[in-house]
């Protein structure tokens, strides 16, 4: 649950996989072999550290060990992202899309659903995120088909506006310029192989719904 330290971009994978998009409506296609990833930038460690350590109480165990020495050197507010559990996804999709995609109910096996009377911290697994993408695309396509404004493909005018609105809704905050730019760039330059405008929008929204801004709380 470490936050913001490491990211492997799936954007290249995403872009290359679009080449394999099926003409079949409402379906996703498997990616082409050879999809690659790239690393993101770096973070100044000092921004994550507790640079002015407050003096707290000392807690010593029976062996004389100061238990506080096990604390990690982190700042307040930098290690907060937790993966949303499967149990809340229906509500979260409803919050953003207006309804939970129908296929979500059958996807419990793709997530770490804890046993009754037990707790397990949800993890971001490949299987889970893959399932999330499929479910997100399904829900996003319904939204795109229902909205007349999505009858036309995203362009330099509509993409930034719609990206900003959808990002804000999904992330519960005002997106920054870079996030909007990234989304709009994806919408306008990476979906050339997809000819259906509504499916283009669905891909854009599904991207947002499989990003950390939506997947974590």
């Amino acid at each position, binding site marked *: 649950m470490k936050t913001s330290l490491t990211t492997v971009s799936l954007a290249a994978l995403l872009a290359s996989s679009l080449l394999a998009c099926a003409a079949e409506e409402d379906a996703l296609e498997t990616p082409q072999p050879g999809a690659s990833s790239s690393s993101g930038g770096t973070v100044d460690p000092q921004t994550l550290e507790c640079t002015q350590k407050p003096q*707290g109480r000392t807690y010593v165990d029976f062996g004389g060990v100061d238990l506080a020495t096990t604390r990690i050197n982190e*700042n*307040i507010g930098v290690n907060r992202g937790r993966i949303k559990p499967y149990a809340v996804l229906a509500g979260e999709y409803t919050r953003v899309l207006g309804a939970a995609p129908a296929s979500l109910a059958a996807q419990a096996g793709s997530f770490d659903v804890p046993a009754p009377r037990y707790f397990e911290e949800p993890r971001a697994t490949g299987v889970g995120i893959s399932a999330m993408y499929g479910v997100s695309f399904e829900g996003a396509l319904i939204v795109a088909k229902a909205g007349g404004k999505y009858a036309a493909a995203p362009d330099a005018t509509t993409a930034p506006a719609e990206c900003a609105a959808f990002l804000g809704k999904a992330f519960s905050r005002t997106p920054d310029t870079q996030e909007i730019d990234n989304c709009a760039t994806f919408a306008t330059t990476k979906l050339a192989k997809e000819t259906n405008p509504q499916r283009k929008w669905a891909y854009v929204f599904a991207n947002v719904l*499989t990003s950390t801004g939506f997947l974590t709380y």
Partner: protein
Amino acid sequence: MARALRDPSRARERVAQALPPHGSLSSFHAPDACAGTFAALACALQLRRFVNLRRIAPLLVLLAAGAVALRGRSAKADDPDPKGRSERCATRLSITLLGKSADAALLASAKPEDSIDSMLTSPAFYDRFASFVNAQSNGAPAASPLQDPVYFLARHMIEQRKPWRDLYIGAYNVRAAADGKSLDIIEDANGLGYFRTAPWMVRYAGNESEGVRISAAYHMIHDTTGFQVPASVAKPGEDRTATGRKADACKNCHYDSWFALDKAAAVLSRKKVAADGTVSFDPTSITATALLNKNLASDKDLVTTLVSSEAWKFTQCRMVFNFLYGRPENQCEAPLFDQCVAALEKDGTINAALAVVVKDASFCQ
């Protein structure tokens, strides 16, 4: 605490300065945008083919390697997006405390923190926190509710706002409810938290040849103080009896350390297995022992000493942080952690300790 520590926006500015120019997909995952990073998988999986894991194995490796970069967003006092901040706070509170997405009323609330008290008295919270405590004590879920005394007793403590230490030393026992689907909590003068409940004693009776309950002793120490020591694996032919455990390689953990497992187990009844496989516990074999700087004569002496320690308070508040944050407290959170301990000391309930942490402004920060 210095304002600079609590203002991640300044940190973000410094990070942004260090970033390469953006605007391309290669900068999709710039650290400053981590909270909104696209971990997307466009057009990647046809659901009908999804079951073929071999076909998508390379993709899964990629995803597992780095699909998520997590970063919480922080709100300042002069947050330009108060509605978003409230909505995020509502979501965080609801999922953390109740395990549910926030309802419409909470999402629309300008101050979702005002709902914390009602959340902390809801059945959903009782279930979630008791489940969390259960998972901290047991390494795996039980097959049946009748084997889950930790869950039901913890839930009782939370729901009835009983002293939290009584989870470990309280005069309680459990019995199967009439419906056979849960355990009822009953008062029992001979009780010792969940440690003398039959399901727990059987589960952690261990397999020592003479019935010495080393596993139970370890779990008593672990559950109360958070202390962990990995179990060793026997080699073929290795002497695992008390004599063998006194050998150089074993005696530190079993006889010499502050947590000397055999010494702790000496004050526990021994496991007996009848010919038909029935497990019982023989209290006549209990032997007084010197441990934890005390002379201990019973399991009650042992657990009471453990629960009276600084380590117990520390472990309970660390558990509170783990529940609320999904991680232990960090160095900068030491003052808040101390407030948690102070609340536990003053009020005695885990409810009070947990409320201090979740009501702190930093939780929704």
